[in-house]
Structure formats: structure tokens, C-alpha cells
């Protein structure tokens, strides 16, 4: 039967999205795996959320006057789209991590959110087009000082990070990918690429969006040599040369692999540390050139590959705080319609170490096991445990009802297996599973002969299931995607 491998579908949805409810897995289970991948890769074909309703109730969001409001809006949107356009949100999160731009400097929340929208709209498109949009993005221009990059007095910040952190990387296979001269000339090519307005210019009546502006008289028209090419280059020419480089194919492939397949070493080590799976990276590099730098094509190859589907790849990545928060909210079915309280929930990302829209530096967040320390781990466990045991949440109620539907006498193994499946086909280590099963057995024995029939029995059964779900949500394994 097509697509019936639900554990594989759950794996796909954890990586290409924020996890899936059992109802969503039932739906995807009706179509071929490849068709599911294709649907995820085309979020534009799925419905949008109701922006008018969002704006009516979160009346301050249109302008997002402070950093917490912007963070809240980001989390709300990721959750709202988690069931319909999950990859749109996941790819936006990916590029936010790679092209890390932060409100600590930008100080204009709507402009930062516009950058995330850029990633939503173009994050799956052609890498050349994406870089060009990025180069004109007001938040990025301000973040890396390109508004101070003038003819005759170039500021190299953007030119350097474009090469080092956004496209090629410092080096690969032990070699350097570009020279200091390339950095200087890249910067010269982007002189005159600036913004209008700035972060304080409209404070009497609130802020207005920053806009990209090209100032031709401030552009350096002299000849430049970049990566072996010579000409009177403008910024667009630099990007054209960048995307042709093998280093760019490698850099983008490693980033995609690191985010969607398995944790790689931190980016700074890539010059001297080969990929964990060189064959997988080679396949992605080839697709990069074959498709003409198309990100959607690369991801199609990735999600359909054996290295992605393999058993080894499953639960091999530590969830980011955004994945923990949004994945849990989506599972619960919470905040699918505007209501008060999203602000407090969204701050969970910050407390777990990922202050969305405000990364620690232009390098973004350190990922993988570096997400975890004693403080953030406690935040993660408490967040999930608090949310997942609330029977008032529609998603929790539907999971409990699904488990109780048609149940006769509850057995401990059935409860644990059922909860693991409904929570996204979570896989527990045998020892932990035995431990939880024993706990459930003890609870059931205290209500000997429990049958989910009468009111009291049903309440006790619900309580047992909720406890099991809470314990699974508190497990080490739940922290992995």
C-alpha cells in the first residue's frame, strides 16, 4: 500500500516540519512517500492562514514594536502553518540560522520579520535568486553595515560574510576558498546598495518599513577582480560568480545535510573537517549544479534518498528549541486561532537557548548537542511535560480518545505503545520503555480490572494515559528529531 510506513512519514515530518499529528500521518499514509515529499516542497499550493483574523486579535503585530512581539509572531506563524505548510516554515528557520541576522543590532522588528518572510517566499527557490534577495534585504544591509559601504571607502563586513558564512565558507578539503582581495572586491561591488529610513526615523508615529535603495552615484564603477574574473562588477555579478563555485555547492550541501539529516561539526570546522557522509554530500552537490542551483530540487533528492530514510538517520538530531516549542504546540492543536497566552509560550524558545530573531552572532546558533545544557534541558522537559498532560488541549484530548476508543481492559504495553505512536512514533530505548511500562502497570494495578467504561474508570484511564504521555514527553528520546 502506498506510503503506509508511518514511522518513516513521522521522520520526514519531523525534519521537513515540526512533527505530525496522528490524523496528519493518516492522511499522508494514503499517498505515496514521494508524493508527500512533493507536497511538502510546494507549500505555495496549500492554503494560507487567515491574516485578517490574526491581525484583528493580535492588533500590535502588524508593526511589532518590540523584540518579544516579533518572537511571538514567529512562533505563532510556525505553529499555524505546521499542519499545512510545514516546510515553508522549516526552510525559513533554516535560512534564519544560516543568514543569522539579529534584533540586538537591527532594532526594527518588522524589518526583521520581513526578512523571515523573504525566506518563506524564496527559501525553496534558486540559490542565486535567494542570495540576490538577501543582498537587498534591509535588515541584512543594516546588520552587516552595507549602508556604510561607500565608493572610495568600502566597508567589508557584508562582502566578507557573504563569502565566509553565507555562500562558500572559508575553505574545504583543507584549502582556502577565496582571498582577502576577493573580499575587498566583493565589498566594492556592493557599494551603493543601501536602505532608506532607519530604525528611529519615524518614532513619533511608530516605525515604517525600511526599503532597499540603490544609489548609483555611490557605486564603485572601477574594474574589480573577483575569484579570477575581472570586470566592472556590480553586486549581482559577484553573486553570479559565487553560485558557480564548487565551494558553494559544498557549503550549501553541508548546511542542508546538517539541518535536515544529521548533525555535522560546527561550520567553523568545515575547512579541515570532512563531511560525516561524503557520499551524501556528493549527491547533493551534483544536484546543485544539475538543477541550476535549485534548492527545492536538492531537498527533493535529500528527502527521497536512502541516507535520509535510513534507520541510522532517525532520532539522530537534537531538536532545536523552536522545534520543541512549535512541535509540541502543533501536537496539542493549541493556538490555531488567536488567543491570549501565546506570548508566554513563545518565550519558551528563549529560555531554552534560541532567542529567535536575535541569534548570538552572525554565525547563528551552535546546534546539535550544544543546544543542551543543564538549564536548557530542564526548560525543555518542563515545557513539554506541562503542555502535554493537559487534557483540555484539543490534540491531547483526541489522542486520549483515540486510545480509549473501543478499548476494553487497558494493558500497560498497549498504553505505552499507543502513546508512543500517537506522539509521533517516538522510539524509546528498551530500558526506558520497560521502566515506563512498569509505572503504567503499577497505576493500573491500583485500579485492578480497570475497564474504560464508567465515568470513574474513564477518568482513571485518562489519568494513566496522560501520565504515560507526560513521561514520554519528559524522556531523553523526545528531545531528538
Amino acid at each position, binding site marked *: 500500500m502506498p506510503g503506509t510506513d508511518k514511522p518513516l512519514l513521522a521522520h520526514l515530518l519531523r525534519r521537513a516540519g515540526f512533527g505530525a499529528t496522528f490524523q496528519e500521518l493518516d492522511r499522508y499514509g494514503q499517498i505515496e512517500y514521494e508524493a508527500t515529499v512533493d507536497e511538502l516542497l510546494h507549500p505555495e499550493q496549500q492554503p494560507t492562514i487567515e491574516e*485578517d*483574523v490574526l*491581525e*484583528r*486579535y493580535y*492588533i*500590535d503585530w*502588524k*508593526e511589532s*514594536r*518590540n523584540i*518579544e*512581539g516579533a518572537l*511571538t509572531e514567529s512562533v505563532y506563524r510556525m505553529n499555524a502553518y505546521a499542519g499545512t505548510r510545514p516546510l515553508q516554515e522549516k526552510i525559513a528557520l533554516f535560512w534564519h540560522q544560516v543568514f543569522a541576522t539579529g534584533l540586538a543590532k537591527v532594532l526594527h522588528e518588522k524589518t526583521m520579520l520581513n526578512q523571515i518572510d523573504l525566506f518563506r517566499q524564496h527559501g525553496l527557490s534558486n540559490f542565486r535568486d535567494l542570495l540576490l534577495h538577501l543582498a537587498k534585504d534591509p535588515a541584512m544591509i543594516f546588520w552587516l553595515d552595507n549602508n556604510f559601504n561607500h565608493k572610495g571607502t568600502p566597508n567589508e563586513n557584508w562582502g566578507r560574510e557573504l563569502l565566509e558564512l553565507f555562500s562558500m565558507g572559508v575553505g574545504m578539503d583543507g584549502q582556502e576558498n577565496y582571498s582577502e582581495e576577493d573580499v575587498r572586491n566583493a565589498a566594492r561591488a556592493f557599494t551603493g546598495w543601501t536602505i*532608506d*529610513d*532607519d530604525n*528611529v*526615523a*519615524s*518614532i*513619533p*508615529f*511608530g516605525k*515604517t*518599513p525600511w*526599503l532597499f*535603495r540603490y544609489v548609483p552615484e555611490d557605486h564603485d564603477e572601477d574594474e574589480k577582480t573577483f575569484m579570477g574574473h575581472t570586470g566592472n562588477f556590480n553586486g549581482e555579478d559577484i553573486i553570479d560568480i559565487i553560485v558557480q563555485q564548487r565551494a558553494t555547492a559544498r557549503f550549501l550541501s553541508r548546511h542542508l545535510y546538517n539541518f535536515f539529516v544529521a548533525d555535522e561539526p560546527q561550520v567553523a570546522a568545515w575547512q579541515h573537517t570532512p563531511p560525516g557522509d561524503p557520499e551524501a554530500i556528493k549527491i547533493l552537490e551534483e544536484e546543485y549544479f544539475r538543477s541550476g542551483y535549485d534548492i527545492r530540487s536538492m531537498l527533493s533528492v535529500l528527502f527521497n534518498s536512502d541516507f535520509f530514510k535510513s534507520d541510522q538517520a532517525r532520532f539522530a538530531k537534537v531538536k532545536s528549541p523552536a522545534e520543541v516549542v512549535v512541535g509540541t504546540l502543533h501536537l496539542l492543536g493549541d493556538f490555531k486561532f488567536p488567543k*491570549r497566552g501565546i*506570548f508566554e509560550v513563545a518565550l519558551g524558545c528563549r529560555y531554552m537557548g534560541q532567542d529567535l530573531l536575535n541569534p548570538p552572532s552572525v554565525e547563528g546558533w551552535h546546534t546539535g548537542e550544544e543546544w543542551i545544557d543543564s538549564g536548557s534541558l530542564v526548560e525543555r522537559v518542563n515545557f513539554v511535560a506541562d503542555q502535554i498532560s493537559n487534557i483540555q488541549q484539543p490534540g491531547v484530548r483526541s489522542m486520549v480518545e483515540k486510545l480509549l476508543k473501543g478499548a476494553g481492559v487497558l494493558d500497560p504495553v498497549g498504553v505505552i505503545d499507543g502513546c508512543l505512536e500517537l506522539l509521533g512514533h517516538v522510539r524509546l530505548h528498551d530500558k526506558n520503555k520497560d521502566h515506563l511500562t512498569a509505572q503504567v502497570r503499577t497505576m493500573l494495578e491500583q485500579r485492578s480490572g480497570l475497564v474504560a467504561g464508567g465515568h470513574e474508570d474513564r477518568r482513571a484511564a485518562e489519568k494513566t494515559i496522560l501520565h504515560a504521555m507526560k513521561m514520554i514527553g519528559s524522556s531523553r528520546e523526545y528531545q531528538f528529531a
Partner: protein
Amino acid sequence: MTTELGLPLSLHKQYRYQDVIGLLSAAGPGFSGPVSVITGPDGNLWVANRANPNQPEAVRITRCTKEGDFIEHFGEWGEEPGNFIWVTSIAFSAQGELFLADESTHRITVFDSDNNFIRCFGEHGNGPAEFDRPSGIAFAPDGNLYVVDALNHRVQVLTPNGEFKAQWGSLGDGDGRFNMPWDIAIDSASDVYVTDWRNDRVQKFDSSGKFLMAFGSSGNAEGQFNRPNGISVDSDGDVYVCDWMNDRVQVFDQLGIFKDMLIGHSGMSKWGRTFLDANPEIEGKLELAAQNIEIKERFYRPVSVHVDSECKVFVADCYRHRVQIYQKI
């Protein structure tokens, strides 16, 4: 188009831009997301500020003169009686009590003329005198309070003490049905106008809820709406509608025929002037910002419109934290 004095005119020259009051501020002279503007018994402007969930101190009622002189602000964010969280609208009773709708606590809160809390009524639900996100409120000439009960898609009529008297409406798009209605206005003949938000129209009823007429459809042409919300009726019977997502205010006659359109012509306010005088470096940057000049003058999500006895039109220009004022000519 401007007058001889250089003041801009509305699309069909029936209104003259006069002034602006405002400044983004969480306290004192200024507004933070103004969502409701009315004239009080004292002849001054009373403005409800919605603000941010993470800036609760900015949720307040501001009182100022119509010339833009700050008088006071009051109110406290919270769920306790007398507090409010998601304020949607305010209205004065004939006795001079201030009524405030809060769509977070699903209740109406009443203050006396000295801003002291008197009582509140309503709770979350869909029964009589219960609410699911109350939004617009208005008093009829007979003293009854009309409340738009948005997510119950109905209008409820209550006494000023909150006792249920009548209701009409349910979810739908036929005559007398609503889809998340927002605001309400009552004219001198006691006829009731409701902005039927998600149906992009205005419906008119008699005081008992009998459907009389509707006007508007989805779009951005004259007479069309993109999520209408604030509504008011002047002493001539002309109807003013905030055409929210089209960022404009449209004026209609009693038959719903389009008459004119306001788009916003804001200059610098008195409070803004004071702020810039104290921060000259910001004024310098404002002057350098060349691309955004026009959008800074225009309405940005106007939420509430109010017309006083002198036919001055006050528009709560929500995302610009100001009230723009026009004079009917």
C-alpha cells in the same frame, strides 16, 4: 487637492483635514494602538489604547482635549474586576458612566465620571448576557446598551446593568446574519448599523433587530470594503465606516450610497513636535528618509471613527498611534 489655507481635502472635497493628535507612547501624552475614540460628557476626547500583551502598562484610556492637550490616563491591565486586557471599544451612557468592552475577559466594565470602577458584567459563553469576544458597544436613545458579540456572531441588547433584553444574529451571510461582526452605531432614529466584518458589508436594523438594508461588498472600489470595522453616524445621518484593510474611511448616506473617502493626511502632532524638539537628531533622520513620506501621512489600519456635534470626524489611526481629525465642510 487642498484648501486656500493649504489643508488637504477628501476625495470629493466634502471634508477638510484639520489636525492630528498622537505620539507613540506607553504613558502620558501619546497613544499605543488606539482602537476606540469618543467624545466624553466633558467635551474632551477619550481614547482606548490596546497596546501590546508584553507592555501591559500601555493598556489604558487616555483623555485629552480636542486641541491635543493631554489631561490624564487611567486603567490597569489584568483580570481582576476593574482591570482590562484586550480593550475593543468604549462608550458613555446618558448618565455619564464609561462602558468598556474587553474581548479577553469577555465582559463589560463600567467606570464613573471620576474613573472609579463601579461594576462589570458578562462572562465567556454563548447564553444570554454571555459573550465570546465582545467588540463594539453603543447606547441607544432609550438607554439600552447594544453589544456586538463577535464570535457568537450576534448583537445583544442589555440594560446598563447587564440584564439581557434581546439578541439577533447568527453565523452566516444572509440578511441579519453575521460573520465576526466588529462595531456598532445607533442613529437618532434608533436604527442600528453593524459592521459585518468578514462579510465585508454594513447591515442596518431597526432597534428591535429587524433587518432594513445592507450595503458593501468585498473589494477596494468605492463602496466596497476589505474588513470594515469602526462605524459612526453623524447628525445628518451620514454613515462613516473604517475600511480597515483598505486603510481608508468611507462615507455613505442613509441609503448606503457612497459619498466620500478619507485616506489620511497627517502632519506632525503637538506631542510629536515636543518629542522632536527634545530629540533633534531624530528629526534630522526623518528629513533624510525620502521614500516613506506619503505612507507616513496616510491611515494605517484605521479602527475607530467618531463624529462629534460639530461634525468633526476623529479617526483612530491605530498603527500610527494617532487620531486624525477632519472637518465636514
